[in-house]
């Protein structure tokens, strides 16, 4: 998968390149609007990550021109402008998604995956990781054959983690997607931490292999095997 990152802030561009390369994307970085426009026009990418405030040609202008020329590539806008108007303007200009800085890197990865996955069949109704299984329809969760009693929130949390298996999810993502609290300045971190701790007590504590891990300062991840 080839990703074009148009970002003029050098440190952030470097972090994006390294982070995405770790996830096995092939990354090209452009540091001005013109360069980004040129690259997007002449090379085939699967996804463009676009900053809006760029020297020379602004991100929105680049995007509008690209869309006028018939470019179909998915575009994710990454910017510090976070008002509703900015978002609407960005999405109306042809962006597929919009992420506000400062963002959690796991969230960027999750959104990139979602954009690249688009058009694929519906999500699975049966999720499995090692000896942990979840049936989304019957809402049954078992580990090593034993049924686990989960509350509604714990179930939704585990489902979300299992759908992002192997990838870190941030607290912001959980607050928005599992707790459905969209206002950003809401104190939910404690709630999330407590719920994760309770889920862990049920899913991991009685068993040898731990599946649910905390990545300090970033978020949570479920992954099989050791590590």
């Amino acid at each position, binding site marked *: 998968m080839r990703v074009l990152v148009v970002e003029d802030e050098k440190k952030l561009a470097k972090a994006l390149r390294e982070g995405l390369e770790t996830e096995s994307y092939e990354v090209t970085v452009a540091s001005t609007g013109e360069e980004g426009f040129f690259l997007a026009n002449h090379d085939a990418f699967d996804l463009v990550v676009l900053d809006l405030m760029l020297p020379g040609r602004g991100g929105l202008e680049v995007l509008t021109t690209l869309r006028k020329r018939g470019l179909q590539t998915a575009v994710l806008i990454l910017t510090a402008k*976070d*008002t509703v108007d900015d978002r609407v303007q960005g999405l109306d200009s042809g962006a597929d998604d919009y992420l506000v800085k*400062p963002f959690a890197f796991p969230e960027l990865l999750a959104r990139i995956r979602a954009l690249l996955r688009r058009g694929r069949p519906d999500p699975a109704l049966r999720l499995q990781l090692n000896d942990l299984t979840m049936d989304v329809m019957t809402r049954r969760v078992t580990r090593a054959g034993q049924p686990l009693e989960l509350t509604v*929130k714990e179930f939704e949390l585990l489902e979300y983690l299992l759908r992002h298996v192997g990838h870190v999810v941030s*607290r912001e993502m959980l607050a928005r997607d599992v*707790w459905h*609290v*969209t*206002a*950003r*300045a*809401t*104190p*939910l*971190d*404690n*709630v999330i931490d*407590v*719920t994760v701790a*309770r889920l862990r007590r049920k899913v991991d504590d009685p068993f040898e292999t731990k599946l649910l891990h905390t*990545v*300090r*300062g*970033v978020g949570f991840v479920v992954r099989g095997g050791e590590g």
Partner: protein
Amino acid sequence: MPSVRWRLTLWHAGVLTLVICAFAAGIFGFVRARLYAALDRQVEADLATVETVYREETGDLGELAHRMGIAHFAVMEGSTIVYRTPGWPPSGPTPHRVRVLRESSHHIVAARDEATVRQTLWTLGIILVAGVPCAAGLAIWGGYFLAGRMLAPVATMAETARTITAESLSARLHVENERDEFGRLAHVFNDTLARLEAAFEELRRFTADASHELRTPLAAMRSVGEVALQRSLSGPAYREVIGSMLEEVSRLTHLVESLLTLTRGDSGRIQPNFEMVSLNSLVGSVADNLKVLAEEKEQALTIDAGSPVSVRCDPVILRQGLINLLDNAIKYTPRAGTIRLAVNQRRSGEVAIEVRDSGPGIAAVHQDRIFERFYRVDDARSRDQGGVGLGLATARWAVEANGGRVELESEQGRGALFRIVLPAPGG
């Protein structure tokens, strides 16, 4: 545009001059009419006298001029002149008032010189014409003096106001008379100054507090990073260090986002999306979200569900406010305490959401200020709880954005009751 003082003076003098002119013209007209009327009466008296003498002693007519002082008259029978005074018909530089008495056999003509009347009117005219400019001059001088006296407080106020800057907002204007217009003006001005001073003070404290709050995580990040670089650590140890720094980053992010929310709320850039919302289900879902925190502290979190209540509000913003209040209650209520949520409609028609806790309560001295940004009752303890000191400020903003208010009832040691009061659903 001339100064107010001059405008006042000119208006005053102008109006006064007009009045004086009208008055003078009136007097002149009145005196003139009276004088001529008197003259006419004299001429008629002359006619009567001449008539009497003519009827009784026609020969005595000549003496009339000397004895009675009737200078000009003539008596005619048809076209024959019976008698006429010397110099008849009268002539001279001034006209004469003439009266005729017609009888069947004769007629008498008498006349009197207008010179005296004219002389009197002329003198009066001179006096009036000379008096009006004098009076106008006096009016200008007096008006200017009076306007100066009246406007003196304005000059003083302007002088004081000129010296007031952002740094000296504590200065106030001197109020001479509380009840007159200038006193009220000075009062209004002083009130404005007081509000400005309070706003500036709040801004200053806010900036200081915000920098302090921003500096704390920055200092932690810096020390953790620098200390880690001094030593050679293993991979996992570095992960710990970076994780610790990232925790501070989320704290900073959270702080900046709370500040942004409040700032945008202040400048009216957040437009609430109103819809009919069931408060019971809103309260239920917020309690549902946060009940794990209460459970961890073995607190009893209950909802007194009254009859269903719906109001027009922005559910996202109101929810944010309620979460902040409930989070606060759970945070400051000790282990095994109780927290009660209630929704009810008040007699006034307003709708209230109550958050009552059995925590330590809030002393009266703090109650007014607890909703201020970064205000903390107990600095060290609050920080341990991980708050940034904006929770209640955010809650108040969220409720006010929905047209409501937050009330607080508390006594130290006896728990606290935060009440979100929203306008009546119908109004």
